[in-house]
């Protein structure tokens, strides 16, 4: 019974933890502009993150090495260092977006200016990082994040023309009035939103926090292979809501209130309240994960002691790094940048930085000296190589597309 509970908890938190501000914003923006015609990218991204998370979790469980320890070891100090700078930058950018997301959601719930919420959100994130146990923070935010399922409920309540939605999804075309480069720019953004690098830093370091061993590999595989695709369905539901409400009216999504509008239209105040709760939980959970990831990456690269399982006094530099990252993110938001814009950039930069972490993990997952019998099988490797190509192409295409389209114009 206890085991079933553990499995269920793992799967549920994987679903609730899948969606973050990047998925929310990008899916809604894309749904409003392109309907369901980019759903295939979510599918590609979800399979990719399953593959990547499953490999890095297995490497961490079996070899006891988290992602950045491996990057440091395989790439050496110079390329590894460049890798650290890029990954750290993207993670802090994502953290900034998540804290902004918390503030936007609280603004929506309270009608109090988001700029007043930002310092509070930053402080709350830091306090939880400082005081709350790893398993508690992961499970609570993951389970509360499940309330985002109201987007799926709302989609049914809106009573869309399902044939039309499915048609957009299976026969994707670039809608009139949108350029082909813009379509592909958003394809890269959506891919980056599904496959953000921090998820992997967090996942592999979390395996160490929870002291996984080779015995836990099958449990972690189940969490990922069931939880992430169901989380991906939530992403699709968010895009679907936007496609039903905004696409016919030719309205662009530029704010969080617009993202939740379909939910309010379909289910009124109660459903809206649940959606806001889900968004707060999802962004708060992701803010914790990204903040932890900044500490993990730095500490693992530089050989500091790290982990929530150590008391802060035993991992001072790790905790200081997280504090600094949270403060930087909060200060950036206080300059009055739009958190939605920060989010849109963060997902594209995620796609750009992805090959840097993906390649070393793919290589080490094949190393028998580290992995023993738990090396990648043939199928995983075949898929792994296909995704290496996809990830590199998306990364190389991102900046030219960004310039050509004026960041999505």
């Amino acid at each position: 019974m206890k085991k079933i509970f553990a499995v269920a908890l793992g799967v549920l938190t994987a679903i609730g933890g899948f969606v973050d501000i990047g998925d929310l914003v990008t899916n809604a923006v894309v749904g409003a502009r392109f309907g369901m015609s980019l759903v295939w990218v979510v599918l590609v991204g979800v399979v990719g993150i399953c593959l990547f998370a499953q490999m890095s979790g297995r490497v961490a469980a079996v070899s006891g090495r988290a992602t950045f320890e491996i990057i440091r070891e395989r790439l050496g100090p110079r390329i590894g260092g460049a890798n650290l700078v890029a990954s750290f930058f993207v993670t802090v950018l994502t953290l900034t977006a998540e804290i902004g997301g918390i503030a936007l959601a609280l603004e929506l719930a309270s009608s109090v200016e988001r700029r007043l919420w930002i310092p509070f959100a930053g402080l709350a994130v830091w306090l939880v990082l400082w005081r709350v146990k790893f398993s508690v923070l992961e499970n609570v935010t993951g389970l509360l994040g499940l309330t985002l399922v109201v987007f799926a409920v709302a989609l049914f309540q809106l009573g869309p023309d399902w044939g039309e939605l499915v048609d957009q999804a299976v026969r994707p075309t670039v809608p009139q009035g949108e350029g082909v480069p813009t379509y592909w720019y958003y394809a890269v953004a959506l891919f980056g939103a599904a496959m953000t690098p921090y998820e992997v830093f967090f996942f592999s370091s979390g395996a160490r926090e929870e002291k996984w061993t080779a015995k836990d590999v099958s449990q972690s595989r189940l969490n990922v292979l069931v939880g992430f695709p169901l989380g991906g369905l939530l992403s699709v539901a968010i895009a679907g809501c936007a496609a039903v409400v905004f696409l016919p009216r030719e309205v662009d999504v530029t704010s969080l209130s617009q993202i939740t509008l379909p939910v309010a239209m379909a289910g009124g105040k109660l459903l809206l309240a649940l959606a806001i709760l889900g968004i707060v939980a999802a962004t708060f959970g992701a803010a914790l994960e990204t903040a932890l990831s900044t500490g993990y990456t730095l500490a693992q690269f530089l050989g500091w002691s790290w982990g929530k399982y150590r008391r802060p006094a035993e991992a001072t530099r790790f905790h200081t790094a997280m504090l600094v990252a949270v403060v930087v993110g909060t200060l950036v938001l206080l300059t009055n940048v739009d958190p939605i814009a920060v989010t849109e950039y963060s997902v594209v930069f995620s796609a750009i930085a992805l090959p840097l972490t993906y390649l070393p993990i793919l290589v080490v997952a094949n190393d028998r000296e580290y992995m023993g019998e738990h090396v990648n099988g043939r199928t995983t490797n075949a898929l792994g190589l296909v995704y290496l190509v996809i990830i590199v192409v998306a990364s190389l295409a991102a900046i030219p597309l960004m310039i050509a389209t004026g960041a999505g114009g």
Partner: protein
Amino acid sequence: MLLSDLLDAPVRDSDGRALGYVVDVRLVLDGPLDGVLAAPRLHGLLVSPRTGTSFLGYERTDENSPALLARWLRHRHRGTFLVLWSDVVRPDHAPGPRDDEQAVTLRGGYHRWDPALPRP
């Protein structure tokens, strides 16, 4: 001397011919106990003829998967060899012009060892 003085440094033989770049160093743990581990000793340098980029560990073992990746990296690093540290003329003893300071020079009659590690 720091590790970063060696990594990426060009390697020459005693006649000044370019042999490649240092891509890694190999340490042996056989010194006196230093805490819980034996103190490491520098055993040798891995020299790759064409590129100073990472070999991602494929030089250590006969690991061959994922096949395309392994083949590509092996091809880029074909001819990689191990030279013992005793075959290296210490950079501070190396003769030659000052702009050559960064280069690693090998003794005449140095031996090219296989970079693979024996399986335990």
